[in-house]
């Protein structure tokens, strides 16, 4: 928001226009690449089927009593309930792992934590690299290591989330109020003490908030990981999609929405407790 309503130096005006032209070109190029093909012939028929399915969820799938066990949720049923619980478990563990491991990465990549540019740059690169590694490939890697199942999903999600969380954390650190750090520095604290006593208490709420945010994304990603046998609700979701069983899709979607909403409620409660 630095645009001056008055005369700004011509140098800036030129640069402004250069940037503007560049952006326009990017858009022209993008729209050319994705021609809008219009609504399809079968669209009406298919949408109707989808809508009908979504609004008539397959309730019978919610809970399939498999055996007499009262603690069915502890076993591995193949219904919505168990799928959601596994998804939840994968996300919780994956999020916790990443939230812990990404902290050093975040400090490594935050540009106000080191004066040496190369350090920051390498940290940012490491985070980008982790982010770029597709969850799917990561999942395959971990399936080779620990076998197919939710645990592989946890690890894939945990590792992959480091990239994003690390980036968000590091930006939180960069945006931080320098006052308390300054005070600690003035007291003769070393770098780590400054971190621990001035930085961490300040960024903790933001870290927490980002972590919860990532947790929600992980719940959704866990659904994707289900595709490759990493457990959770994803597998049935993909099959329901492929089978075009829209009422099944509907009930799964509903399940995910309810799950995320509950998470939202719980996490805002926890946030209030801890912040």
């Amino acid at each position, binding site marked *: 928001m630095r645009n001056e309503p008055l005369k700004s130096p011509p140098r800036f005006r030129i640069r402004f226009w250069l940037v503007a032209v560049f952006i326009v070109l990017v858009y022209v190029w993008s729209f050319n690449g994705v021609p809008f093909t219009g609504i399809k012939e079968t669209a009406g028929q298919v949408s109707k089927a989808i809508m009908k399915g979504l609004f008539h969820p397959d309730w019978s799938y919610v809970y399939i009593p498999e055996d007499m066990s009262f603690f069915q949720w502890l076993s591995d049923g193949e219904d919505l309930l168990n799928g959601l619980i596994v998804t939840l478990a994968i996300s919780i563990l994956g999020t916790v792992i990443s939230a812990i491991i990404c902290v050093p990465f975040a400090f490594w990549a935050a540009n106000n934590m080191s004066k040496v540019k190369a350090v920051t740059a390498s940290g940012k690169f490491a985070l980008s690299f982790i982010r770029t590694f597709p969850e799917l490939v990561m999942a395959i890697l971990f399936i080779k290591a620990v076998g197919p199942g939710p645990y592989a999903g946890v690890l894939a999600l945990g590792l992959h989330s480091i990239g994003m969380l690390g980036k968000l954390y590091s930006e939180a650190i960069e945006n931080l109020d320098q*006052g308390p750090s300054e*005070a600690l520095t003035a007291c003769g*604290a*070393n770098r780590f003490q400054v971190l621990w006593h001035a930085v961490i208490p300040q960024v903790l709420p933001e870290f927490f908030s980002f972590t919860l945010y990532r947790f929600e994304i992980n719940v959704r990603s866990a659904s994707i990981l289900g595709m490759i046998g990493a457990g959770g609700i994803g597998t049935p979701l993909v099959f329901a999609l492929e089978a075009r069983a829209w009422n099944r899709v509907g009930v799964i979607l509903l399940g995910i929405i309810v799950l995320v909403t509950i998470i939202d409620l719980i996490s805002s409660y926890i946030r209030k407790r801890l912040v």
Partner: protein
Amino acid sequence: MIEFQNVSKVYPNGTVGLKNLNLTIHKGEFIVIVGLSGAGKSTMLRSINRLHEITDGQIVIDGKSITAASGGELRRMRRDIGMIFQSFNLVKRSSVLRNVLSGRVGYHPTWRTVLGMFPKHDVDLALKALERVNIREKAYSRADELSGGQQQRVSIARALAQEAKIILADEPVASLDPLTTRQVMDDLQRINQELGITTIVNLHFIDLAREYATRIIGLRAGQVVFDGPVAEATDDKFSEIYGRAIKKDELLGGTE
């Protein structure tokens, strides 16, 4: 003893903060720095403990150049300089006690402070410092539950607990009401006199300056335009500092 040797500071955007400063501040002095807003008072104070890097010259404290110091040495030097910030610089979410204790970290190995294992002696010291500024009872409150004046006092307690040899205070009484202002200045004076701690304070109030200082330094556009004992700081001198004659009735409260 703090020596400024040809100290200059130019901000990255070209603003000149300090211009060829040469000064010697002796142990136990109570110095008040006055000057117009933007004169460079904060810049000067923050150069002493190197919160700002100066761009030229050097600052020598008790014979050691802080400008050249680095690593552990710099930290030890800083440990001996307490600072009271205009904007308090408290960790708002931590308790008052924790904030005060953080002034002690320079004395202990990292692992110890990180585990929160401050020795009993430190905790006592911190509580005593809080007592001194009359907010002992707030020790376990979160810093953001305090009023502005109370926060200012926590910041003073932190500097006290640090057991520093020098205290730098950047407008410690702005936004305090007259009663609290008095209290804070008295406190600073007491530790200066009782413990012989060199004290450097930025102030806007000429009267307060005259009352508490042993020596007044006037800054203008980053340069020292007055330096001398209170007795010499006549109204004329202040006129010089502020760039134009100050009519008698312009001195804050000077009338009446």
